[in-house]
């Protein structure tokens, strides 16, 4: 590598760019046409019935039981059935836990929740697979089970995982200063217990995979997933093949929202297992009820929160206990809990903090990744605390926040100093203006009558990249082909967010100076270098660094070549509008196509990878202090609601979002993310809810009884306020957006309802029933 291709130097150079060709513009996404024509292909669209095996899953009906035996004889009599497969057929390892090795792909010995996979049936005929699955008989020896996380924490006689010796799967902590001292300095103290519930992703496309066996023990898997290289690693482990024998392609996906980061590798492993065992192409597509019964949910939490502030409105101390009901398996629970723990303060300066997190096993469906990753629940609690403090102190809620918000140079509760890219206070101040906060809060606080208006704010932060200094990197392969077209190869997937089909193209086009329409992105493939996952809002931030660096390397080569051809120095070269020319004399130029031709004929390599390993600090788990993230994105939201006090129905009328998420590469796509996340967050707060029976079984695994927002429920969403607080390692300073607007939504909406009713909401969801009881309770108190 020549020194001119050092990634740090290249990043520094491009971070200084002030004028842009395509970055910052609402460039149209490349996939819109094929999607609008119904031509885009998703996993299910590759299925060819009659030529492939169809797989059907047999799920546990018991929450906790020993498996005494499995009788497949009747199932095997069904015509066209290829086989019934169980844990003992797995040639590799039956272990798929991401954080802890506690989870089998197929239940082995015992089941731990109703809905767990016990057997797979494969048949040539779709109907026959279903018929056979119904004929598989599982003999269970039921065991006592535990559903409530508080109870599970205490019990030693009922253990979801006997070998752990307790139902506490994982613990986390943060310690800063001395909370005794902090509370003694506090003039007001508020203490509340918060509860939040599960949420289903309801991506319109359920989980699916098609595994195609090839000669020489090779496999190609077309699958759902948010990280092709992780899908491949899990498949390899389960089928017992080297990773290099497996190719994973993640085509267009009908939504992911985190859920397919967890379930994608599992659906792929199931299809691959059958393909490996039978030697035949094998296809598995979850039905909606399977999807809802099986895939991990947003964490259900209990959060005990005590905060103290001095009379002048300065936060002095917090003490927080976070309990996550992780269900039958820890899955990514420890990571989710970790994120919740370090974000527990909200984006505020807090001198004294004690935070403890507990990830608890119960015999229910397990928790997993979901847009916000442990953060929406804890920001809801933190922001309800801020409102409670504001009320007690007699300070306006926005003003109280502005007194405490993090600013450059401040320390987080883990003791990490944030020197740059901290635009949150600016964003909140601007947001208060555009939403006409001051006049509304005054007007609504005294509202009366049947329909009451309320306004609320939620402010949140979200660390970019993996937590706690866990290694994270980016990469991509960028090639300029002989005809001048540009292809970008990345592991980042396209699940609707648009990073490969919009921002990646913009970044490559901007840096190379190549016209946007010659840039094509090949996404979601293990043929690309390992790019890391499309999660944690990293698609356009960390994920695209690879594109940024690879393109910058090629640009250096092009500038050098063009300068030689035009007889000048590389710094004098400008490339745009299909030519490379002299800055001082645009008449002296060579066309883009000619330039590339010259590169090929003169031995200048026209492909480059853009590996970048993110520099990070260390976190000390023992001390509960240290480095948490390379940067934080910030988001704030004001919500205006109307509550029908007769029925308890809440309508969100309007939402004002604000982002301090670094450079906005594509405002159109960012708005799309913000709008979608806000409505998904609103659904979570007002209507979405699972109902469990006394065996922990989900009673409403369908879209009739699990209700998500329609166009009639969705509020008006105003244009976001942007504060571009540049992050030095992000492409052109971008931080990350995908999850952001969901994170403050519970806080903003719940605080608005509190404002309308003169109560403090501490429990979600705010269904008409729950709100009705809140109103009754309040009236009871008055009477």
């Amino acid at each position, binding site marked *: 590598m020549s020194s001119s291709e050092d990634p740090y130097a290249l990043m520094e150079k491009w971070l200084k760019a002030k004028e842009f060709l395509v970055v910052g513009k*609402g460039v*149209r*996404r490349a*996939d*819109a*046409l094929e*999607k*609008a*024509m*119904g*031509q*885009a*292909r*998703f996993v*299910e*669209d590759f*299925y060819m*019935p009659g030529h492939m095996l169809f797989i059907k899953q047999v799920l546990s009906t018991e929450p906790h039981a020993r498996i005494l035996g499995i009788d497949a004889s009747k199932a095997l009599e069904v015509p066209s059935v290829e086989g019934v497969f169980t844990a003992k057929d797995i040639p590799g390892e039956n272990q798929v836990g991401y954080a802890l090795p506690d989870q089998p792909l197929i239940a082995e010995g015992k089941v731990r929740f109703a809905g767990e996979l016990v057997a797979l049936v494969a048949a040539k005929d779709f109907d026959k697979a279903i018929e056979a699955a119904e004929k598989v008989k599982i003999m269970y020896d039921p065991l006592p089970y535990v559903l409530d996380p508080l109870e599970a924490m205490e019990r030693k006689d009922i253990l979801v995982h006997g070998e752990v010796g307790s139902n506490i799967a994982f613990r986390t902590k943060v310690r800063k200063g001395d909370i005794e001292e902090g509370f003694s300095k506090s003039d007001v103290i508020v203490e509340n217990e918060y509860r939040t519930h599960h949420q289903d*992703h*309801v*991506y*319109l*496309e*359920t989980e699916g995979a098609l595994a195609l066996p090839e000669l020489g023990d090779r496999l190609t898997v077309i699958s759902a997933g948010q990280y092709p290289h992780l899908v491949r690693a899990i498949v390899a482990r389960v089928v017992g093949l080297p990773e290099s024998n497996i190719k994973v392609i993640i085509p*267009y*996906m*009908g*939504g992911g*929202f985190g859920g397919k980061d967890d379930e994608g590798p599992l659906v792929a492993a199931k299809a691959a297992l059958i393909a490996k065992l039978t030697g035949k192409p094998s296809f598995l*597509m979850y*039905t*909606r009820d399977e999807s809802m019964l099986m895939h991990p949910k947003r964490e259900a939490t209990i959060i005990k929160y005590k905060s103290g502030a001095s009379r002048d409105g300065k936060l002095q101390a917090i003490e927080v206990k976070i309990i996550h009901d992780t269900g039958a398996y820890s899955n990514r629970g420890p990571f989710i809990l970790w994120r919740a723990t370090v974000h527990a303060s909200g984006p505020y300066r807090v001198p004294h903090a004690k935070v403890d997190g507990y990830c608890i096993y119960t015999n229910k469906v397990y928790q997993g990744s979901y847009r916000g990753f442990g953060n929406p629940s804890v920001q809801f609690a933190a922001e309800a605390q801020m409102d409670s403090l504001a009320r007690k102190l007699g300070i306006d809620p926005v003003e109280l926040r502005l007194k405490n918000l993090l600013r450059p140079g401040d320390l987080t509760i883990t003791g990490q100093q944030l020197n740059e890219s901290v635009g949150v206070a600016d964003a909140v101040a601007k947001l208060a203006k555009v939403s006409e906060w001051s006049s509304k809060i005054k007007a609504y606080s005294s509202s009366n009558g049947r329909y009451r208006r309320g306004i609320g704010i939620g402010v949140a932060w979200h660390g970019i990249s993996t937590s706690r200094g866990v290694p994270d990197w980016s990469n991509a392969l960028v090639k300029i082909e002989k005809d001048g077209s540009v292809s970008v190869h990345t592991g980042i997937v396209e*699940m*609707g*967010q*648009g990073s490969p089909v919009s921002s990646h193209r913009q970044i490559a086009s901007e840096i190379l100076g190549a016209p946007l329409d010659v840039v094509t992105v090949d996404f979601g493939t293990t043929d690309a270098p390992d790019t890391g996952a499309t999660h944690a809002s990293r698609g356009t931030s960390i994920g695209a660094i690879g594109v940024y660096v690879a393109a910058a390397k090629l640009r250096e080569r092009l500038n050098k070549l063009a300068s030689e051809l035009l007889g000048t120095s590389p710094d004098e070269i400008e490339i745009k509008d299909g030519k490379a020319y002299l800055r001082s004399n645009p008449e002296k130029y060579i066309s883009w196509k000619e330039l590339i031709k010259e590169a090929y004929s003169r031995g200048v390599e026209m492909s480059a990878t853009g590996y970048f390993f993110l520099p990070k600090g260390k976190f000390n788990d023992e001390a509960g202090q240290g480095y948490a993230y390379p940067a934080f994105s910030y988001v704030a939201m004001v919500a205006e609601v109307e509550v029908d006090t007769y029925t308890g129905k809440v309508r969100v009328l309007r939402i004002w979002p604000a982002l301090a998420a670094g450079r906005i590469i594509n405002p*159109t*796509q960012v*708005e*799309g993310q913000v*709008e*979608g*996340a*806000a*409505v*998904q967050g609103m659904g979570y707060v007002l209507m979405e809810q699972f109902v469990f029976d006394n065996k922990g079984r989900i009673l409403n695994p*369908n*879209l*009739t009884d699990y209700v*998500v927002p*329609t*166009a*009639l429920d*969705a509020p008006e*969403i105003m244009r976001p306020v942007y504060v571009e607080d540049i992050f030095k390692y992000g492409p052109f300073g971008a931080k990350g957006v995908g999850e952001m607007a969901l994170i403050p939504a519970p806080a903003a909406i719940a605080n608005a309802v509190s404002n309308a009713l003169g109560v403090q909401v501490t429990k979600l969801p705010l269904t008409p029933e729950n709100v009705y009881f809140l109103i009754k309770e309040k009236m009871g108190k008055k009477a």
Partner: protein
Amino acid sequence: MKIPIHFILNGEEVSVEVEPNELLLNLLREKLGLTGPKYVCGIGECGACTVLLDGEPVLSCLTLAVDVDGHEVTTIEGLAKDNELTAVQKAFIEEAAVQCGYCTPGFIIMIDKLLKENPNPTEEEIREYIRGNLCRCTGYVNIVKAALKAAEELRKNTSLIKIKK
């Protein structure tokens, strides 16, 4: 028992044998290779499988294949004529109403139909008309914008034609 049926699909005649319990959605996707209509819920809650039957929107996940015998079916693939997109398709692209795209075919078919019935709908009327279609990505903002824009475009074009006459 297989039942032979004949119908017009996207303007072309089709003859095919189906099972008595075969769903239109499966027939289209699996036998006829039209994968634009999507399976999402299978129970009539999402609208992603919407197609036109004799010009009326129906949920293909709840329609038996035998019932289209002798009728005319149009899917998302059949909307664009001679590679010319419909005003609604164009507006979806221009207004960024497409994200993951799984819901898109259903919405486009519905809004196309709405604008035939009501060339000048209000935002409320649009929201009311598409209330049976779910989208989990967009928050519906840009879908509604696209419908308004397509309506405006269509009105412009028809008035142009009228003036020419």
